[in-house]
């Protein structure tokens, strides 16, 4: 499935938006495809005509200043945004060619395929084991042996197994912030998602913990498709394959990461990534 895509050689005159902007597009499958997505919080028009194609086994970074709609956008992809009562959405969001805004698409089903890691580590006040087993349990797995296997596999997947394997029954609140965030990532892996959404997952972490998460993201994209919102442009440049720059609820530019950071085609993108605002 994964096609070797070397974006570092990809500097030459490409259009900047939509799928025409990418090289080696042919073989990669779309995981998300938004069509004229608009979102309002009451009267506040938070997302305006978003048309983004997101490909599998890639890291897609969403950057932009505070309040530009980037968190709103990824929370729309697993419909977490609907927890806010005044939200209205129009347009289509195709996940693997099915419209998730369709009434027949159950959010519980969607969120089993599209997992999420939040800005602030949010483990449950339960044991490490119960945190990881939470997802499988709500999806009906009761067999202790299977749960054990899922817990170990997920913790290994989030590179935290060695640190916690001797204290699986201790409360997760005893872990450091960075460990808690990797635990949350492991908890997300335990539902065996297809896509992982990350909403500024390192903004509450120290640099070393941040580095660990970034390394994990690189590892995880082999098996998962990752969409990450970040305030940190260096982070987007380091870990992502594609980057979308959001401004005032619109996508200003969406293209290969190394292109957006070397030769952005829009003046506003250039101003933002060179630190002139935001």
């Amino acid at each position: 499935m994964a096609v070797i895509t070397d974006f570092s050689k990809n500097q030459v005159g490409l259009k900047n938006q939509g799928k025409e902007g990418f090289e080696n597009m042919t073989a990669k499958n779309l995981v998300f495809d938004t069509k004229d997505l608009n979102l309002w919080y009451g009267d506040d028009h938070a997302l305006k005509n978003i048309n983004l194609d997101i490909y599998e086994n890639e890291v897609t970074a969403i950057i932009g200043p505070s309040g530009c709609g980037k968190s709103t956008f990824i929370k729309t992809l697993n419909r977490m945004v609907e927890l806010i009562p005044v939200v209205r959405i129009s347009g289509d969001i195709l996940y693997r060619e099915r419209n998730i805004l369709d009434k027949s698409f159950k959010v519980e089903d969607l969120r089993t395929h599209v997992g999420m890691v939040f800005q602030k580590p949010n483990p449950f006040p339960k044991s490490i084991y119960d945190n990881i087993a939470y997802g499988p349990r709500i999806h009906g797995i009761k067999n202790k042996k299977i749960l054990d296997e899922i817990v170990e596999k997920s913790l290994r997947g989030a590179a935290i197994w060695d640190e916690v394997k001797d204290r699986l029954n201790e409360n997760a609140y005893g872990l450091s912030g960075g460990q808690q965030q990797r635990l949350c990532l492991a908890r997300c892996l335990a539902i065996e998602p297809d896509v992982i959404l990350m909403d500024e997952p390192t903004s509450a972490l120290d640099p070393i913990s941040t580095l660990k998460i970034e390394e994990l993201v690189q590892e995880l994209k082999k098996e998962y498709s990752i969409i990450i919102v970040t305030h940190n442009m260096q982070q987007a440049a380091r870990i992502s394959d594609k980057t979308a720059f959001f401004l005032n609820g619109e996508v200003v530019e969406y293209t290969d990461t190394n292109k957006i950071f070397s030769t952005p085609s829009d003046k506003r993108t250039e101003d933002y990534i060179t630190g002139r605002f935001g």
Partner: protein
Amino acid sequence: MKYIDSAQVEKKMGSRLLKNMFAKNIFLLATLIGLVVLVVLIYRVFADSIGWIDFNFLTNKLSTDPEKAGIMGAITGTLWLMLVVAPVTLFLGVGTAIYLEEYAKKGKLQSFIQTNISNLAGVPSIVFGLLGLTVFVRGISLGAIVLAGGLTMSLLVLPVVVVAAQEAIRAVPQYLREASYGMGATKWQTIKNVVLPAALPGILTGVILALSRAIGETAPLTVIGIPALLIPLPDGIFDKFTVMPLQIYYWTIDAALVAEYANLAAATIVILLLVLFLMNSIAIFIRNKFQQRF
């Protein structure tokens, strides 16, 4: 030129400090008055009850003879009453709180219900007695039995439980709910596995405090017609019954006829206070032991 004249300041310093002292002592006095009254009350009650609390007093049935009278009937009545009140308030109170916090759309209806719950908490208990008399005793013809008393008492303490449970549920951080929803959990799974376990200490504290209020209430039970003198012990929730505070009430009234009844009332008060003290201790213990920090 300076506006604050240090000579003037010096001159007024004495009276300022005096007022300062005075203020402190006034508030100390206010605190002490309440405390002294309480101490006097407890002293009188204990003094009157000395020699009256013994094994026979706890295990004997009610009798007109002060030497033989015991409060076994009132104790069993109170226990049966609690056996009705506890599950009913727990279910109705927590259920209402969950609905209002987790399901109800924030809007006019929700705030209307909310306001009325707060108002209900302030309704005098005797009014609840009338409600119980109308609905349970006469309306569905239960008569003055434990079940009718228990349902009446449940309605009386329900607002307290609802508000306490709502606060406990509201204190569960939104990010825990999001974590659960984010993994595809349904609302009920989230409530059952995340919200309720985290809110449980607060809910239980509220329930226990509500029960200790119900144990001490008298007025609603007099209104629904609990008899003044009841010798047989209640055997279940369909029996006639009496409770400790009512027993205290009737003995206090009849102390004009038989002086020793005052001692019996005092002895019953001591037992009632001990029960309340125990229940409050359990509430505090639960709160401290299971309280989670987020």
